[in-house]
């Protein structure tokens, strides 16, 4: 087990989950290889808390989100929701649990039907919930109030709103079915700075009021440091470091975590530029042997190039995938 949390406190546990996408090519579209998008990830989301999943593009963080929600089928590994394994559930058995896990996306427009008023989009969720027709309008008004939109919004169409307002609609839609877990996949990345702050405040406020648990996926370390209780740092389909936000930000152990934190430009003038980490992220189609980070690692040794590295506990609840720490 990853931490000392008792099972009752854990809302969602992911164990050694894997997802390989086949790459086809050639004359008969034969499988040429696999993209190892997620390669043995363990995670734990504690009730009422926020787990941050950080990493650069292509590290597999969004694939993890889709696996957790069972929008994608995992190749191996287990997903345990509320002490119940859901990995092998059929679509039908999954349906009552789907209600409890919702997702908000980076671009809410893509998840809203342009020909449906906001009110009718929200009512769909309420219908699935089995709420009586006469009570639905009242609930829509409550939901809009909850996310800070005026009541008139229910009669308007998605295109009539600004980006920040649309993300509020996305949140209201997710909350309409009263979930316990909200997966937030880069929910503020497309928004302006002043609007980002509004949405972050809203997410924090909703978490307290509705005791929601969040899986918060982001590439923005400042946001993750502000919002999350625990963090997992991903690189090429694997978790490199996992621990409390304090662990990760104050005593980062893995060279990748250190490099990632050092790359964020300081907001105080006069500190100069962040030191660059050399090289590009390798393709997940041909990840390097041994440690995934060996090609860019400043403290690489021969052993890192040969042997696969496993996550090991550095401290209570602080796990690192590196020999050298």
């Amino acid at each position, binding site marked *: 087990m990853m931490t000392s949390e008792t099972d009752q406190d854990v809302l969602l546990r992911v164990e050694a989950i894997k997802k390989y996408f086949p790459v086809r090519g050639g004359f008969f579209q034969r499988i040429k290889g696999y993209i190892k998008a997620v390669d043995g990830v363990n995670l734990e989301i504690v009730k009422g808390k926020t787990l941050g999943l950080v990493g650069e593009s292509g590290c597999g963080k969004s694939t993890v989100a889709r696996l957790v929600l069972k929008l994608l089928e995992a190749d191996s590994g287990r997903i345990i929701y509320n002490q119940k394994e859901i990995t092998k559930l059929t679509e039908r058995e999954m349906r009552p649990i789907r209600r409890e896990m919702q997702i908000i996306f980076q671009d809410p427009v893509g998840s809203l039907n342009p020909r449906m008023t906001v009110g009718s989009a929200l009512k769909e969720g309420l219908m699935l919930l089995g709420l009586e027709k006469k009570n639905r309008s009242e609930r829509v008004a409550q939901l809009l109030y909850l996310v800070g939109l005026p009541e008139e919004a229910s009669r308007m169409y998605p295109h009539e709103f*600004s980006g920040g307002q649309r993300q509020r609609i996305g949140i209201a839609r997710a909350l309409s079915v009263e979930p316990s877990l909200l997966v937030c996949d880069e929910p503020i990345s497309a928004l*302006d700075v002043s609007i980002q702050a509004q949405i972050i*405040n809203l997410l924090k406020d909703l978490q307290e009021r509705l005791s929601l648990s969040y899986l918060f996926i982001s590439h923005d370390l400042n946001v993750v440091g*502000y919002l999350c209780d625990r963090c997992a740092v991903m690189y090429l389909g694997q978790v490199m470091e996992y621990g409390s936000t304090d662990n990760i930000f104050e005593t980062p152990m893995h060279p990748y975590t250190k*490099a*990632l934190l050092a790359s*964020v*430009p300081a907001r105080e003038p006069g500190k100069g530029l962040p030191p660059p980490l050399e090289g590009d992220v390798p393709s997940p189609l041909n990840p390097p042997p041994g440690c995934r980070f060996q090609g860019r690692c400043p403290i690489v040794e021969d052993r890192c190039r040969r042997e696969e590295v496993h996550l090991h506990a550095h401290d209570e609840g602080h796990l690192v995938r590196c020999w050298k720490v």
Partner: protein
Amino acid sequence: MDETSALLNVEGLTVWFQADGERSWAVNGASFSVGRGETVCIVGESGCGKTVSALSIMGLVKSPPGRIAAGKIMFEGKNLLSLTDEEMQQIRGRRIAMVFQEPLTSLNPVFTIGDQIAEAITVHEKLTPGALRKKVLELLWAVGIPSPDERLGSYPHQLSGGQRQRVMVAMALACEPDLIIADEPTTALDVTIQAQILNLLKSIKENRKLSLLYITHDLGVVASIADRIYVMYAGCVVEQGDVGDVFLEPRHPYTRGLLASLPDRARRGKPLVGIPGYVPGRFGRPSGCPFEPRCSEAEKECHIEFPQFLDWGKGHVARCPVVYSREKGR
């Protein structure tokens, strides 16, 4: 900044676009300058007019629907707005070059990067094939592309995002310009790659004694590279000054709101102050302060009169009489 020594001096730039019979004011009398060897940042949120300002300097505002209604763009004493297309061609690329946010849309997918960089050179300079190849290799080497002679024949899709942006920088450098305008060049990149490109731009700027006009919404990037900054809101410059002065003692409620909106570890557990309301649309021009509808400090006059710049010393000015009358002299 001494106006006479400025390389680029934009005065009262006003640009509108005609859409569905309505005028949309993208830039509303913005003035800014870039001195020789200086890195100047324009900061603002989407729709504040920062990109349109850059495109106006390059003469790339499409007309119609766009129109530069007023203002002067003085580059080395010449007003770029009064030049003919041929004269502008001599400036664009050769004296002022631009790097865009998304290199994939600026690179041609069916030509190798070697050909594309060579084209950027031959537009302005006639060279023998051997000299041309040598120059392209030098440029690729200068922007840190590993093994340039192998990369010469690569197509844009074979490069990573960071390498494509390096190729864009190489093309911008092709004719040894005096000024590079970079419009959100690292916004689409990962943080570790962003750090690489920022370091590249900085070293190139220093080695080649260039000036850099850098447009971004990322205040962290601004703090780490800028000498001076201009904060834009709704087409107007609302505050300007040395980066240290503006960050440490912001004098406009919008700049203060922006800085207070930033989440980070130090602010954990406290709600972010942020700015209420939404970024305004561009249709219609309010007569008063453009920020007044969202401003927590607004008073009655703010709605009526467009605020003038008020001086806080050392070239630090801000368009807010409310903050000025309360805090100046304290």
